[in-house]
């Protein structure tokens, strides 16, 4: 067995983190993407830019600010402490918060593109047939944006699995809590356990390739949504 129990625990934790992050991002990202695709508000540019920030910021910036802001002296840390939640760094919940921020553009951008590609007249037609806005959204917009949802889910999940720098900075490397696969690989390399590092790293490579292959097969690049 090339994988130790600690390796498998890290894999399980990573999948749990990525699954929960993707779910939360779909819930929060869908209305946000809809708004970005449809609004004429002057804030559209600014909100779009904020959503895209994690694409260009190094993980060290996000990790450092999260460590400071979520810590006991930071504004968010004081808020979570006042709410009785304690501070979030070094906890699984803290990683979820960080991952939601970090993977936000990977979910919101495909959804925004997919929503923007829906012709206005289809939505108007639904409205003339007396469909309410929610009805229109769930029965017209969502089915038409299906490729966008697929891209958003796959990219959000895969990008969270691939997270390293942010987790390293706010995770504290706790087995079963914050020691995800990428950190486990780093530990193996640091400890000169190259064989174990190879198994996990190779596994990540195969996983990433298969995920993208599946995505590009079902949903070829260039089509709406990506």
């Amino acid at each position, binding site marked *: 067995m090339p994988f130790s129990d600690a390796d498998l625990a890290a894999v399980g934790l990573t999948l749990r983190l990525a699954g929960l992050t993707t779910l939360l991002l779909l819930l929060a990202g869908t209305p946000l993407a809809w708004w970005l695709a449809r609004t004429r508000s002057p804030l559209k540019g600014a909100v779009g830019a904020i959503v895209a920030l994690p694409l260009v910021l190094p993980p060290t910036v996000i990790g450092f600010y999260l*460590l400071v802001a979520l*810590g006991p002296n930071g504004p968010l840390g004081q808020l979570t402490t006042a709410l009785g939640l304690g501070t979030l760094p070094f906890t699984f919940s803290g990683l979820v918060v960080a991952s939601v921020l970090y993977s936000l553009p990977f979910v919101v951008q495909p959804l925004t593109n997919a929503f923007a590609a829906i012709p206005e007249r289809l939505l108007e037609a639904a409205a003339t047939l007396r469909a309410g806005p929610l009805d229109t959204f769930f029965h017209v917009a969502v089915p038409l944006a299906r490729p966008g949802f697929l891209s958003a889910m796959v990219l959000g999940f895969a990008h969270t699995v691939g997270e390293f720098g942010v987790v390293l900075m706010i995770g504290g490397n706790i087995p079963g809590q914050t020691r995800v696969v990428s950190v486990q690989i780093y530990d193996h390399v640091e400890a000169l356990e190259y064989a174990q590092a190879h198994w996990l790293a190779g596994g990540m490579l195969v996983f990433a390739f298969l995920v993208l292959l599946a995505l590009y097969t079902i949903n070829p690049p260039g089509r709406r949504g990506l």
Partner: protein
Amino acid sequence: MRQPSLLVAVLALFSAGASAETVQLAVAANFAGPVKRIVADFEQSTGHKAVVSTGATGKFYAQIVNGAPFEVLLSADDETPARLEREGRAQSGTRFTYAVGRLALWSPNAGVVDGEGAVLKTGDFRRLALANPKVAPYGQAAVETMKAQGTHERLSPRFVLGENIAQTHQFVASGNAELGFVALSQVTRDGKVAEGSAWIVPASMHAPIRQDAAVLLRGKDNPAAAAFLAFLRSDKARAVIRGFGYDLP
């Protein structure tokens, strides 16, 4: 009479330019503070330049094996330089212990850590930061200390592990962990603990943290590499090293 003196001046300029070399140093994270001071003195007194990269020793090892351009390693342990020498990646005969690390249990707040480390037995804290004992000598020493004290088992659920001692310090300094085992060098300025409260762990509680240096293969023909190690043994450098709370062999 004028011409020869001009020639001498030009030659002097030339030879100064030719002998001033740059050396690439890979330096253990715990030695980041002292090396900055030592490099400044080194550059001033020899005219050579030194470029410093700080980080985890295990990472440096992987990078050196894979062709990183480092010429001198100031390791956090004595094992890595020995291993590099065995593998023919470090120049034999250049290895020596440049510092012996001391461990401190530290909090940035006054009155949290007592001078005997009793806080570990009785203290009411949520998180204790230490460097990952699997990869970092200071983490290993921290575990040995807690085992000697009989607190290891009780405290291990509260551990948060830094990737190296610099990150461990950051966990504590930012308040995310109330206290942690850091390198004494990180919290010492001019021979005493600069802020907060600390327990300087007696050296008898853990195996000595011998930090060895060696010239790597890439630095074999660089006079600045040898010059740096020679400078590291000088009284001036030793005074800096001691001032940061290290012991010397």
